[in-house]
């Protein structure tokens, strides 16, 4: 199996889907001639030409809305947001139009659009460019949200998203773009709504998504080496749909749960996960559910403090020890 980066995995998914289906169009700011602000779409214009790989003006409400309209007529747009933070100027299109049209038409209209781009903090760019809107968007029925943490999942989830007949919002992470991992060269998909046990353990379940998975895996190493604790790490991969069964099976085995995410705590993804665990596995728990989120403030600019604001391994270890106490 080839070892490629998360960025290359995303590109491979788009490239293979552009080849497979002539209705797939990649569209966004700087995706074509500039080769992508983060080079995720590099080379696609050269290979597929300007009809399939389209530069848009800086006009998120306009071009995202255009993509939604085109998808209603059978085009399968893969729209890049340079940052998910920019989704907020297109919120009406992303939520009200894409998320509601199937429902309000009584199932007559589908919206097979993919919107993708990085949605993460940790890049020293301040509050306006560091949002993690997966919980906000996933709280709207009609919308699907996935957050790949590894190159394998990035390719498989992106391909599933493009083939899916509903709006799927893929939240990537700029800090992961250069991470390498084994990725099959051929066609495969990671279905939406299937979590992945990234590390098997017996004493504690950590549930995480996105880059928090990588942080949790580091913390699990430390917990094993320094504290002799066996930690299982469940990577949600998909926020909505959500794989409740994998979460619950792990908690039923370890009897303790720690939830880690890069969102701010209020109504984060883990608020929902915690509810599900207490509602469906209460008797299996030996301790209250623990939680690590970003420190509850707009994203700070100062790099040293931003690294503190986001969940990091030491904070996860400390929280884990509390759950294990």
């Amino acid at each position, binding site marked *: 199996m080839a070892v490629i980066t998360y960025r290359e995995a995303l590109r491979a998914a788009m490239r293979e889907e552009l080849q497979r289906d002539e209705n797939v169009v990649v569209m966004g700011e700087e995706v074509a001639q500039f080769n992508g602000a983060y080079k995720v779409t590099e080379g696609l214009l050269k290979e597929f030409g300007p009809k399939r790989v389209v530069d848009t*003006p800086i006009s998120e409400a306009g*071009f995202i*809305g255009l993509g*939604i*309209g085109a998808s209603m007529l059978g085009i399968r747009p893969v729209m890049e947001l340079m940052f998910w933070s920019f989704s907020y100027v297109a919120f009406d299109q992303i939520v009200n139009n894409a998320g509601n049209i199937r429902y*309000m038409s009584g199932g007559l209209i589908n919206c097979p659009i993919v919107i993708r781009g990085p949605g993460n903090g940790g890049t020293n760019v301040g509050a306006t460019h560091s949002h993690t809107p997966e919980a906000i968007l996933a709280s709207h029925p009609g919308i699907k949200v996935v957050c790949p943490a590894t190159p394998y999942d990035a390719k498989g989830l992106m391909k599933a998203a493009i083939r899916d007949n509903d709006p799927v919002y893929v939240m990537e992470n700029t800090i992961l773009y250069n991470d390498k991992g084994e990725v099959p060269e051929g066609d495969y998909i990671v279905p939406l709504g299937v979590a992945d046990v990234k590390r098997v353990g017996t004493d504690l379940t950590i549930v995480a998504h996105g880059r928090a998975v990588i942080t949790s895996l580091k913390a699990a190493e430390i917990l094993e080496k320094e504290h002799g604790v066996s930690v299982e790490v469940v990577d949600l991969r998909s926020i909505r749909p959500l*794989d409740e069964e994998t979460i619950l099976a792990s908690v039923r085995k370890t009897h303790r749960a720690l939830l880690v995410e890069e969102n701010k705590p209020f109504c984060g993804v883990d608020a929902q996960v915690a509810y599900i665990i207490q509602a469906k596995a209460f008797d299996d728990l030996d301790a209250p559910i623990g939680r690590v989120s970003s420190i509850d403030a707009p994203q700070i600019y100062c790099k040293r403090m931003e690294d503190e604001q986001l969940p990091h391994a030491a904070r996860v270890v400390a929280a884990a020890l509390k759950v294990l106490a």
Partner: protein
Amino acid sequence: MAKPAVLTHPESLKKPAGPSEFAKHPANTALSKAEKVALYTKMARIRHFEQRCIRTYQQGKIGGFLHLYVGQEAVVAGTVSLLGKHDHIITGYRDHGHGLMVGMSMNECMAELTGKVTGCSQGKGGSMHYFAPDKNYWGGHGIVGGQVPLGTGLAYAVKYKGLKGCCLAYMGDGAVNQGAVHEAYNLAALWDLPMIFVIENNGYSMGTSQERSTAHPGCLAKRAEGYGMAWDVINGHDVYEVRAKTDAAVKRAHEESKPTVLEIFTYRYFGHSMADPDKTYRDKEEIKGYRENKDPVLLFENELIAEGVLTPATRDAINEAAMAEADVAAVFAEESPDPTVADITKHIYWEEDNRGPNSTSRGTIIFE
């Protein structure tokens, strides 16, 4: 291009409008007698359907908002009557006329208003959210201007597929100050999309007149020049004029793949919605002037009678049939069942409604 026109010239409301200058336009001489009668019939059906809605609303059977199209019939009748197989339309929340014009039944339209499962959206959309994609009608959208980028996407898809077609995105005069509309203008012009932006200018964005809402209120269509787009202004009380001028825009879209902005002057007889008491922002004389002297259905009726296409007897028969059809629709809506509690969670996700072994989706997607 036409010069900016004044929407409401008070003097023009004092005497009946004369015969249409556009009766001899090729777009109209191309109509057979039967087609003219059919066009009149569609306008009358919209008028009577909407008037029947008022009664149903007053009986407490229609909930929520109800935005009536009475007075604006020539706009949708004139524009939609020009469209073909690959032409699409999308509009805002004043959407009943568009639905009836593309061929939706009064039954499904009325049942949707009363929230019944036999409605066009199975009671899930309501007055503001009619859809008939099989008739190239993509809604029915509740947020002012939000449908305009979607319409631009429909035009993009038509062009992408190499089809000779276009999209008409209707909006009210209140929408022209929304950012999404300007973003759509820019994209349509930048990418040469077969797009027609139709501003149904009825003079009021809810209760705010154009003078109080819009910089440079004299002509909204002229903003097209900022994007290098063609534009025109149309007297929307005259269905012949609407057809004649829209025809040019449709040809521009079909043959040159170029967008147009059309501003069609029209007037609504009732409030913004049924919740609008309509007492604070315009006077009764103004409404009376339009009803008596500029009514689009009446003017077309006069036109067709003068042409010998319509007789008073056929006119009466058409109107009686439309009223009867609306009554039948009201009964149909009344007698239809509600959706069920189980229906609440259907039609959210295609993949959920069609889940199979090859589905791209698993897991929990509807939460307790």
